[in-house]
């Protein structure tokens, strides 16, 4: 098990290297000289040359890549050009809202999507299935910014139950943070639950016709237990996959939702960095998000081994 896990981690390093290479070279493909962009219109040729030297931009591109790799390997993602602080620090500051938003949203999506999918599968073809499937279709197609605006209008402005936007004062209590996250998390949860509903329904339909479900019934096991223990236990692998991937996606920053709700998260950081061509921040954020994505995938694979005894590492 440990050997295989080690091998798995090794392949993750290779994936991360490829991600780093892509991030680096794609950013370099963007037109324009970063040094000239940083210094603006009034810069002289000498200024630009000096800055190129400071940032190592005068060296051959492969050398730059190797130097950059060395830096990120030691956890140094460079210095933000506009934020006047290290990229690592900038990301760390923004990580908390994004992390909790992702966690909260995935919980909402799973708590809505999984039961709805089960109900839909158990009563396949009946009215409840049609309603659930219809709502799932609707949820999948609602733009999150629109739903976000509706929610703000209704629950924040009209009813005043939740704050309109933002993440609260620095150092506010956790409950206050939760209040700020409630609306965006519900929006993201609803939008992302659609896929979970569909996967849960399909996976449950698959296992409900399996022979061991009939065996369970032949033992006199109650229908609730047949569905929840015997069928659901076997339907979990695809469900965990889609929930995990949803989580991974949300950690990357729900850019639109963060913008609508004015949350200072990763998505927000990346968008402003792109607009200002703050290359170190763009690169750093992409690397971090990719790393989290890869780690969540690893986590999903580890969870499989607990859910299905036939899966072994």
């Amino acid at each position, binding site marked *: 098990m440990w050997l295989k896990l080690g091998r798995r981690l090794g392949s993750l390093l290779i994936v991360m290297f490829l991600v780093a290479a892509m991030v680096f070279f794609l950013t370099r493909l963007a037109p324009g000289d970063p040094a000239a962009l940083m210094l603006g219109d009034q810069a002289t040729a000498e200024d630009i040359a000096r800055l190129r030297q400071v940032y190592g931009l005068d060296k051959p591109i492969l050398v730059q890549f190797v130097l950059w790799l060395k830096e990120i390997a030691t956890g140094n993602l460079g210095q933000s050009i506009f934020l006047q602080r290290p990229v690592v620090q900038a990301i760390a500051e923004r990580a908390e809202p994004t992390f909790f938003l992702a966690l909260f949203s995935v919980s909402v999506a799973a708590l809505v999507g999984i039961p709805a999918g089960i109900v839909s599968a158990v009563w396949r073809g009946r009215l409840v299935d049609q309603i659930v499937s219809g709502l799932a279709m609707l949820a999948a197609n609602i733009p999150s910014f629109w739903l976000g605006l509706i929610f703000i209008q209704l629950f924040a402005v009209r009813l005043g139950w939740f704050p309109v936007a933002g993440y609260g004062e620095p150092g506010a209590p956790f409950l206050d943070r939760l209040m700020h996250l409630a609306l965006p998390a519900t929006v993201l949860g609803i939008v992302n639950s659609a896929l979970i509903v569909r996967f849960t329904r399909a996976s449950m339909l698959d296992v409900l016709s399996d022979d061991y479900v009939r*065996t369970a019934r032949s033992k006199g096991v109650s229908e609730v237990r047949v569905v929840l223990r015997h069928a659901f236990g076997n339907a979990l692998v695809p469900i965990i996959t889609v929930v995990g991937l949803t989580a991974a996606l949300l950690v990357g920053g729900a850019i639109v939702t963060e913008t609508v709700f004015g949350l200072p998260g990763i998505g927000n950081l990346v968008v402003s960095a792109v607009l200002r061509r703050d290359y170190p921040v763009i690169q750093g954020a992409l690397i971090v998000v990719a790393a989290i994505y890869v780690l969540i995938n690893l986590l999903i694979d580890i969870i499989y081994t607990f859910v299905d005894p036939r899966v072994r590492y």
Partner: protein
Amino acid sequence: MDKSPLLSIRDLEVRFRTEEGEVTPVRGVTLSVGAGETVALVGESGSGKSVTSLATMGLLPRPAGRVSGGQILFRKRSGETVDLATLPSSDLRKLRGSEIAMIFQEPMTSLNPVLTVGEQIAESVRLHMSLGHAAALKRAEEMLELVEIPNARRRVHEYPHQMSGGMRQRVMIALAMSCNPSLLIADEPTTALDVTIQAQILVLIERLQKELGMGVLFITHNLGVVAEIADRVTVMYAGQVVETGTVGAIFRTPRHPYTSALLNCLPARAQRGEDGRRVVQSIPGSIGPVGDGCAFAPRCSQAADVCRTGSIMLEAEMERSVRCVRWREAFA
């Protein structure tokens, strides 16, 4: 003591709604199983054997299938006789696994892959015998010993995928036996197994039946197995019972042409040159509307005009019954 049989199915009719309309895969099944008796239910694929057994268990696929006629009378341990066809589902559930148990054809897929075999047996035991967790697991271990699984103490914690097909069928049997059922329905329990394993499983079922005094309804299409294990035989064709009798009587003097054709398909008889394999060349009858003659008539070498009209009733005489209007002429 009550002399009524343990299980008595009378004129059972089952209907299924399909996309092409309603079909009646079982229409007029009458059979009985006494306590401690093994009754073989034989017939080719699609003859309604499995549907009959699922109807008895109350496990017809819902909402498509339902019992549309007849009775399934079962004598409970308490002595009371109930009609399983009309029993409320919660009462039926209490009988399933405790007084009536079932083993299935597919040992490879009939056990839950994510639960240990011990958990699966213990679940049934806890449900019906109201034992605690530890006691139920202990009982599971004893059951594995009963079905001759070596190293039961260790095996009880294993998952189905760690076992062979024969082993898994033993587990299925242990599961079925775990609450001392008075009736066991075995739906082709050996069909998916190697011949050598088949024999072991048959011997095991026979032994347990004698030890525990169960009634067994043994569904099979293998007449060799029937000869080995059954006391009485019920032959089904196209959803109907066509003949019933003791194994000796059926094998010696089959009265229905279908039964005799089946027997002639046995390799030993076919070699003797007894007019064998005739039936094999034709295609099984589809289930048409009830009442337009004998369902077997299109394949029957003895068929006459009288066979093609009216509805053919099951004629009972002593311990035997046969659904054929010409059996006296054709097989006297």
